[in-house]
């Protein structure tokens, strides 16, 4: 537990200052306030982007309305997937195969594309077996960059709508998200990862004879470049099957720490950006501290259960060992547990086998996947946080008998409808998916535990798909046409349904005037508001999901202790 305390303190010490700086940076670059003098960095990026705007016929000063904004993001998402479909389908006829000649079937391609472009990055394929180097190290980063930029753009629209009176231009936001955040930061991160030991080369494999004269082949590639965007974009796709557990992807304890920082930095920064745009940093600190408290609680709980160890193994072998099963030695119990707790909220990568964790961690995971607001996936998580703030403000407003408002903007019917869609879309898709699957493919074993665990797996798979997270309990045999097609549909509907309602909600809020009164009905930047926000966020998730969580992972725990 001392290690955990040090780990958390170090993490916050690194994360908070760096995300403060990044948040300030985002707030300046995505506002483009004509009254303020441009910084040197802004002028530099303006010069870089000018030829891009010219080439694409974009007028960067043209504002879009909500519907156009969504259609622009949606259509470009589809276009880039269509391009990737062609490359993936003909991958074995294209160069740079790295010795892989696998013909991908269409359901699997659809699943890969749907999971990548929606920033879910659920992996049903085995990268070392199914994907050529061209698909794996070029198409995947391409989609990850674009989906992550789309996520940031969506987040930015809602943040602008809530705090300012402006919508923006979809193409400008996406291009800015790439040129000003994702590419430069990924490049920096990539070099850091290489310094820590991750390979980065265009070679495809190295063969050698080991110390005992056995032939061993190492698959290699631009892994560091892949890692950087995978983590920064909160995608979590693996370029090698073991994901961040692979020694090449995550070579040391320190690199694990850096990975955790890079997963959390953008969502942290976006919360700070809200504070800068509201010109009320206290508001950002209130929101951030609520989310950080939830995160630290999960870190501690997961680490506690993993350090305690597996009771069945410990009693069978007469040991008192922490649970080493499915964990890497160099990352340690604490490093793996903290990472797992963080990624079930945020990204979907993994540095240990999720199956080998105590089932209570799956319960936490399912809670996070349905809540989605504890940092959440790139951009979208911030919107879910704002959504719960909206709910809290609405709730308090009704309790006080005043007109509900958020940051000086009235909350009316339109926003509440869109925000309810946002809240109910996820359970609708997940629960319908789980029920259909259990009817079509019931578990055939006669063991009660296996039944329960199958239910957990199915539930987790759909929840992670609908939450654009992408982690999964991997002993589910999920590379079948049924799983590929059903999850491709769920991910697609969940992502673009949410995206549409988010953007429309942001646009609708942006049109409202800000009423600055010296005596607002209630203040949103107090600890009390933070507490009610936490309560609302937890309660609304529990109301929807608790019965199902009790039936699956918690029942497993009650069976075995």
């Amino acid at each position, binding site marked *: 537990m001392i290690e955990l305390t040090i780990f958390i303190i170090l993490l916050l010490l690194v994360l908070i200052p760096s995300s403060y700086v990044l948040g300030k940076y985002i707030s300046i670059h995505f506002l483009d306030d004509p009254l303020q003098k441009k910084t040197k960095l802004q002028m530099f990026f303006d010069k870089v982007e000018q030829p891009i705007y010219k080439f694409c016929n974009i007028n960067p000063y043209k504002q879009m309305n909500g519907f156009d904004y969504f259609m622009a993001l949606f259509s*470009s998402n589809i276009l880039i997937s269509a391009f990737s479909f062609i490359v993936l389908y003909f991958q074995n006829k294209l160069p740079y195969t790295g010795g892989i000649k696998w013909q991908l079937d269409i359901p699997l391609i659809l699943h890969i594309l749907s999971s990548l472009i929606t920033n879910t990055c659920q992996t049903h394929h085995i990268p070392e077996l199914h994907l050529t180097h061209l698909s794996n190290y070029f198409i995947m980063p391409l989609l990850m960059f674009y989906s992550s930029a789309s996520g940031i753009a969506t987040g930015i629209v809602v943040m602008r709508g809530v705090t300012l009176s402006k919508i923006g231009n979809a193409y400008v936001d996406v291009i800015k998200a790439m040129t000003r955040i994702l590419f430069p930061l990924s490049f920096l991160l990539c070099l850091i990862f290489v310094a820590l030991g991750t390979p980065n080369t265009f070679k495809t494999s190295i063969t050698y004879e080991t110390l005992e004269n056995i032939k061993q082949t190492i698959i290699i590639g631009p892994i560091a470049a892949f890692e950087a965007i995978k983590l920064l974009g909160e995608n979590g796709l693996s370029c090698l099957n073991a994901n961040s557990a692979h020694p090449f992807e995550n070579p040391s304890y320190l690199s694990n720490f850096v990975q955790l920082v890079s997963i959390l930095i953008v969502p942290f920064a976006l919360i700070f950006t809200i504070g800068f745009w509201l010109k009320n940093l206290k508001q950002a600190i209130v929101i951030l501290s609520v989310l950080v408290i939830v995160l630290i609680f999960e870190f501690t709980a997961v680490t506690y259960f993993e350090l305690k160890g597996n009771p069945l193994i410990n009693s069978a072998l007469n040991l008192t060992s922490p649970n080493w099963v499915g964990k890497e030695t160099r990352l340690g119990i604490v490093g793996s547990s903290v990472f797992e707790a963080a990624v079930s909220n945020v990204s979907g990568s993994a540095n240990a086998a999720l199956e080998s964790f105590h089932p209570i961690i799956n319960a936490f995971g399912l809670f996070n996947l349905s809540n989605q607001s504890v940092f959440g996936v790139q951009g979208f998580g911030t919107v879910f946080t704002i959504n719960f703030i909206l709910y809290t403000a609405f709730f308090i407003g009704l309790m006080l008998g005043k007109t509900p408002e958020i940051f000086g903007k009235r909350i009316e019917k339109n926003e509440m409808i869109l925000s309810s869609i946002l809240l109910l879309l996820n359970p609708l898709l997940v629960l319908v998916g789980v029920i259909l699957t259990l009817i079509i493919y019931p578990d055939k074993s006669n063991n009660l535990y296996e039944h329960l665990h199958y239910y957990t797996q199915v539930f987790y798979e759909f929840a992670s798909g609908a939450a654009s997270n992408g982690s999964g309990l991997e002993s589910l045999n999920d590379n079948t046409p049924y799983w590929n097609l059903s999850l491709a549909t769920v991910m697609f509907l969940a992502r673009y349904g949410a995206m549409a309602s988010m953007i429309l909600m942001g646009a609708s809020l942006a049109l409202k005037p800000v009423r600055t009164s010296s005596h607002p009905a209630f203040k949103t930047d107090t600890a009390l508001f933070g507490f009610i926000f936490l309560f609302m966020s937890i309660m609304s998730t529990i109301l929807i999901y608790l019965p199902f969580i009790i039936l699956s992972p918690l029942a497993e725990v009650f069976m075995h202790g």
Partner: protein
Amino acid sequence: MTGIKVCMVTILLTIIYLASSVFFSTIVFNCNANGSLIKSNNKIIGSKLIGQEFSNPLYFHNRPSLNNYKNNISGNTNDAYYSKRLIENIKTNHINHKIKNFNSSPDLNLISESASGLDPDITYEGAISQIERISKLSGVTKDDLIKLLNKKAKPLVFGISGQKIINVLELNLELKQLYAKTH
């Protein structure tokens, strides 16, 4: 039309990103960028980061692996926390370890699979539990082996403190040199 052009720009930017990152990392950190390979007599014998299969009883052994440390597919068996198969496998590994190692008990780390199946390290305790076997079969004294272990063991947490872990390939390379000296 604008959508297509934005996609084309993204493709171009990704190509620039990949090419420049590989270019710079090869120049600045050549060894790391190529996989941290270890050479012995000018021949590549492995990577510092990737575990190898050791079956020779004279060497230290790694953790069990689903694919026997073949790198073509990384991963593990993914048995669930309470599943019978997991408990049975670990029991079998425990018994096998005891038979091979003259009844010295291993820690859980050494008899359980890692997540990647390529874990290059074992814990200090795991290495200690193999000393009996190596010393009896090779004739090197236990004290010498423990000295070697202490030299190679690194603390887990940022290399500063915490439980000690050992890179098996580097350890076995030293051991090989030790054998060459004594014989």
